[in-house]
């Protein structure tokens, strides 16, 4: 099953739409609540990242009986130092974003923690691409 979603930069209202939809699907596939929660948290954090940092993003989700692959590609400033960005507590979020309760510097570490396989690549000035892969076997 293939799904895709668009997210707008700065659109915190709709960030979470993709994770909600994916959650609805996984719940119908007899997957344990713990596994669903991992996928949903990782995807939600990734959506918020796009809303907080990028100008636009595209999410593609592919679900088979064994694995869920999520690809998030955004157009935005990109990440200059990925290693630094992966550290807990590090954030470049703006004051406005922090005032909304986001930007605590836990997003990327949290995504990695909740993924079985996590890949990140970025070109500064162009954008960032994440790949989140979770096995669905219980």
């Amino acid at each position, binding site marked *: *099953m293939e799904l895709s979603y668009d997210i707008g930069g700065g659109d915190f209202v709709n960030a979470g739409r993709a*994770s*909600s939809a994916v959650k609805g*699907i996984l719940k*119908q*596939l*007899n997957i344990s609540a713990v596994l669903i*929660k991992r996928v949903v948290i990782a995807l939600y954090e990734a959506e918020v990242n796009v809303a907080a940092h990028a100008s636009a993003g595209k999410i593609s989700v592919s679900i088979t*009986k064994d694995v869920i692959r999520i690809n998030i590609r955004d157009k935005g400033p990109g990440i200059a130092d990925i290693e630094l960005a992966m550290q807990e507590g590090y954030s470049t979020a703006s004051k406005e974003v922090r005032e909304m309760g986001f930007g605590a510097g836990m997003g990327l570490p*949290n995504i990695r923690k909740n993924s079985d396989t996590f890949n990140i690549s970025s070109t500064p000035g162009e954008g960032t691409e994440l790949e989140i892969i979770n096995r669905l076997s219980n």
Partner: protein
Amino acid sequence: MKACPTEAIRVRNGLAEIMEERCVDCGECYKSCPVSAIIVEQDDFNEIFNFKVRVALVPSVLIGQFPSRITTEQIFGSLITLGFTHIFEIDSVVDIVQEGYNKMTGQKDEPTPRISSFCPAILRLIQVRFPSLVENLIRVKPPSDIAALSYKSALIDKGLSEDEIGLFYITPCAAKIASVKSPVGEKTSTVHGVINMEYLYNKMLHIILNGEASEEQHAAGDLTSMGILWSLTRGESRHQAGRSLAIDGISNVTHFLENLEDTENSQIDFLELRACDESCAGGALISGNRFLTVERLNGRARIIQNKKRQDKAVFQDKEYWLDPIPPRPMMVLDNDREEALRKLNKIEDLLKILPGIDCAACGSPTCRALAGDIVRGDAGPEWCVFLQELYLRNGKISLDEADRINSGIWGSEREYRSQIK
């Protein structure tokens, strides 16, 4: 059909059918059905006379339904006239419930937020729709159960034997009736019967207005203002440490829990969730206006606001905990994942051809629900009035067949069938 938060209702042969495994007993259908097609199961009132000692367990909202000029003594008196021998105010035990909550707080590894299991419809909603949150439920029995247990042991201490005591719970709540008939988190229910408050209200009012109420009756139980307000919105949350939220109305609760599932750390410590708008004052079996009920209870609480409990609240570890609450997920399309995925793909394909206006003429509440029914084999695409026309036009089904399908949904006895020739 559309009021149901778990899409459990289908119309078949002109009747509303409830899919039992999905139903959370919230009573929304009962409240909203325009033709009173939904009936709440209840015990025969005369069952109370099987016992020598007949205890009415009374929640505060019962008192709140009567006009202010009627006194609590008259209200309790009418219950004695009806045949009860003892009256116990359920909400006098909330200090014990709170004691149970206190025992839970501070425990490590306890998932947050902790969710109150006060409301039986919410408990079932979480089992069915949010199985990932069952671990968050606080496993303290609700006041009605603890009241029954503690008053029963008080009566036994006074020398009565257990088998002559009959405990009857007068309830404003459809889910409570269900939770006594099929308990969650308990092996058997503590009370012997539940009495529909709506049924009793008329009888009581009649007795009071005719001056037939037994005089100067008081209820047992040491009621404080905390108790009176406990079953109303914010009744629990205002007494909890840390950040607590109170949400009433099952659609509000559902929306909130959907969001809660997506975040790892909500930074909320306690959630009071109630299925009914204005909590128990808005219960399905409340006959009075819920806002007036709240106002009257606030008034009653103000009068006794400085009253303190006489004895210390003691939480009985042996009896007052609920058993683990199992998840009861209803969303799974098939236990075999490959098959479930195939069905899901078929649902998505069907949604591309269904009109998407959720008209419910097919007997399912939404187009998505119909698509689900089709893949389960409980309905066909030709049940959709829009698709049916195409099927007819292309000769895929006959007029007779269409007629048979439609009467299978809306019944063959409907009047229009003879009127339109």
